């Protein structure tokens, strides 16, 4: 072990092991994933609207990931599902089309993976961002008034103005969300992980009884489909 090149080679092999095992393997796995087609039409994930995609940048720029996670745990491991933070656990498929994935590290605030299902109203999200104490009285979350503009009311006022609680309303002035606030609110509202997919079952384990099929008169179905049954796992 007195040989520089030997140590260099050894450390190189160690780094290749972790590089290959973690990054390359995941690269291959994740780039092989595709949005899963749904029988009802469309695919999951369907992608977010343009504004919601921009909202990811606002989320990142304000350090929301410092307090919020987006990784709902499976039913039976912790109480995320029971708490109403989602209907199933988050999986790689949910994050497939996102540029930024804010898994997060700790829950100083609630898990946001399905916050769009809990609070689908953009205005509520905006109000919460403007001052969290308006929607959650003893919240620890900082306020983001700089994402909003305070303007003099012109005429009957803007349609986009926030409907503030009575005691903080200033007559003659209104609070308008900027594009950043709107994008962030749209992004939050788009966060829903409700579609049942292969990796994340939303229903309990079925009984070992014969399963009901939903094809009315399918007779030739059985023999030819056993080949598919074995190959059900994703390619």
């Amino acid at each position, binding site marked *: *072990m007195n040989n*520089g090149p030997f*140590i*260099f080679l050894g*450390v*190189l092999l*160690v*780094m290749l*092991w*972790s590089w290959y*095992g*973690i*990054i390359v393997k995941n*690269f291959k*796995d*994740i*780039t092989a*994933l595709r949005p899963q087609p749904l029988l009802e039409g469309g695919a999951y994930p369907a992608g977010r609207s343009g504004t919601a995609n921009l909202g990811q940048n606002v989320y*990142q720029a*304000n*350090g*929301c990931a*410092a*307090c919020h996670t987006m990784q709902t*745990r*499976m039913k039976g*491991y*912790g109480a995320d599902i029971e*708490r*109403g933070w989602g209907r199933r*656990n*988050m999986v*790689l498929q*949910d*994050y*497939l089309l*996102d*540029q*930024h*994935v*804010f*898994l997060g*590290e*700790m*829950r*100083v*605030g*609630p898990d946001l*993976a399905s916050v769009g299902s809990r609070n689908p109203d953009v205005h509520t999200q905006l109000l919460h961002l403007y001052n*969290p*104490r308006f929607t*959650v*009285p*003893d919240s*620890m979350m*900082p*306020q*983001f*008034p*700089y994402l909003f503009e305070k303007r003099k009311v012109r005429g009957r006022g803007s349609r986009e103005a926030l409907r503030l609680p009575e005691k903080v309303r200033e007559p003659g002035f209104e609070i308008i969300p900027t594009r950043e606030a709107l994008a962030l609110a749209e992004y939050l509202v788009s966060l829903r992980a409700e579609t049942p997919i292969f990796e994340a079952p939303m229903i309990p384990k079925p009984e070992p009884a014969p399963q009901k099929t939903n094809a009315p008169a399918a007779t030739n179905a059985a023999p030819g489909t056993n080949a598919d049954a074995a190959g059900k796992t994703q390619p």
Partner: protein
Amino acid sequence: MTASVTETASARPSPDAESWQPLPEDIDHSCRLPVMFLFTWGIVWLIVSLIFGVLGSIKMHAPGMLANEPALTYGRVVAVSSTAFLWGFASQAGIGIALWLFARMGRTFLILPRASLVAAMIWNLGVLLGVGAIMAGEMTHFAGYQMPLWTAPIFFAAFVILGLSGLLTFVSRTERELYPSTWFLFAAFFVFPWILAVIGLLLGRYTNIRGALEPIISIWFANNFTMLWLGSIALGVLFYFISKLSQQPLYSYSMAGFSFWFYLLLATVSGFQNAAGLPNWMPSLSAVANTLILLPVGVIVYNWYKTSAGHNRAKKEKDISTKYLNFAAFGFVSAILLRTLDSCPVVDEVVGLTVFQAGLAHWTLYAFIAMAFFGALYHIAPRLTEVDWPSAGAVKAHYGLTVAGIVIFAASLMLGGYVEGTAINNPQVAFNTVSRQTLPYLGFSSIGLLLLLAAQVALLWNLALLARAQYRECCGGVRREAAR
């Protein structure tokens, strides 16, 4: 020249040029400029990190405080604090220590000292730009790299020079046998540019990185940064000083070799133990790695124990560094044990995604890495400046306050995480109640941070006095002579 013959006992009489080795004092002298620069700015950034940390901690109790200013919103304040610690303090101090260790262990002068000084300046510029960019709103959400990724080339360029300096010093060593510390430093200097290039290119330059690959790369980076970059340097420091300060040879070279390779192999795939949105093989792999790593860590501890067991106790007590390094060794072992515990699914279910993780991360960074770096700093700085630490009181204050600070900070966050976790896992408890239950623990952690901040101010003051004393000794003397 002539003075060298009458110098200290470690000067080797050398009849021929091949076995000639420079004196430690002269090696120190060659290191002085870049290493003192790195140390000083490292402590400055540490103080910046703690100021922002305290600010962030207070914001937990008064979320409205300074929240109207986008540059001071909680998320950015915490990002600045983390960046200033990891990139401003820990990396710089680590590089400075590593350069000195390469030179001393190789019994050779530091190569490219002036270029290293320039590189250190570039590094600091990078940190400054990064911190400014975070406050301006360009932060990323990657745990180990929260500056915008366009700063990565700056650090890469600076490290090319610093790494080259270390490498050339290593290559030009006059001592052929490699002491285990050298392996650790070598590994650190290899790992850092590798992981920096990965995160800079994959997440900064190439935009076809889809979906969950982003947090996977980010967690991989953060873990390797702490355990294989900073951690390797800290282990190199501990190996070096445990033998040097006790004046005993390290107990077993081969045990050190065993633990070196296995530590690297296992620590590099750790980090995913708490991830819930990732396939199960990742937390399982990290859990296995965190458990297996107990073996090389046990071997390291045994090695250290056998090394220091028989030595002169009296001599040991007088050395400032020994206190820090003992605590750092304890910090190392406890951090590893806590990580192993954290990987058990039973424990992870409770504390996996709570403030416990922040407590554990900070315990690792302060009790292990920062304490090791402090110990080294207290040993190296007086040798570079050729002046003893002026204020013994400041040293005692620094040690006491740092230990108290980190213990209070980490313990309160870990306990708070446990409380939070059990409350979150009870679906009957509303989330507001969970927050309210966690808040007092966050309050205690603020106290810990304040103590840490006070400690580092004491250190900076001592460093300033040291520099002033050295200036007086060095340039004051010249002036006196010139005036004659």
